[in-house]
């Protein structure tokens, strides 16, 4: 993160507290969703959406990704592409299985 003035750091601290409150609230929401009858697929999708929002908050604010350098963004783009390939390998196997 670039050099920060004390005022900017104090502003960041307020943001951290707000993000913490949002994360705690979304944790309760995640548990609440599991008790709703949304169907199998609906429950999975909603729970993963909430988890993704929480993950984005942690990455953007606690890990300061919003203010990072391009080098980090390129590293992460490459990581995300590799991760998606990894996740879609079993899904493609599942589709093959369905065809048989």
């Amino acid at each position, binding site marked *: 993160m670039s050099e920060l003035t004390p005022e900017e750091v104090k502003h960041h601290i307020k943001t951290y507290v707000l993000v913490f409150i949002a994360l705690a609230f979304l944790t309760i929401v995640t548990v609440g969703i599991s008790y709703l009858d949304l169907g199998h697929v609906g429950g999975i999708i909603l729970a*993963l959406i909430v988890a993704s929002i929480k993950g984005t908050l*942690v990455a953007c604010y606690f890990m300061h990704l919003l203010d990072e350098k391009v080098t980090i963004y390129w*590293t992460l783009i490459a*990581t995300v592409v590799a991760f998606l390939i990894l996740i879609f390998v079993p899904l493609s196997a599942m589709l093959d299985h369905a065809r048989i």
Partner: protein
Amino acid sequence: MDIPYTVKNRPDTGLYNGKLGVWLFLASEVMLFGGLFSAYIFLRTGVDDWPTGTEYLDVPLATLNTLFLISSSVTMVMSWASLKLNDFKKYKLYTLITLLFAFGFLVIKYFEYSAKFAHNPPYLPSTNNFLGIYFTMTGLHVLHIIGGILVIGYFYGPGSKMWNSDPERFTNRIEIVGLYWHFVDLVWIFLFPVLYLL
């Protein structure tokens, strides 16, 4: 000989070396946990009947553990912000709280695992695929928590002497330790619903 770019940013990357190094390490960690998430999807989609986490696992305890980890994440970033404000006492306080939350996480995990082993018949990794992937993923995550405690503990204790000799470098060290710790939190954010709730 001094190690270059521990404080100043490298002109080509725009970052100090430690930060880029930790981000590259985290990229490899994404692939490590990604492989296990991939295995989980493979196992789950390969069978017609997959147990819900509530059949085997303790959701209230895991919810408490989630709150412990997100609390430790905010205290970790606060410890870095305290150093940015030249407040070393607050840094020590927030780091201590971070360590307490991390130990709290381990204690709860101990109770969770103990309950599985004490069950009759015992719930072991060999019992079924669900418990196999549960113990593998949470076990690897626990190892990361222990690693984090060791490093954060070092910078709370002997490693904090660097604040007196090279405060900027020390602040950078806490920033990158924080990156690792937030990543460990981030992994749990996905492990919790995937294993316990779905």
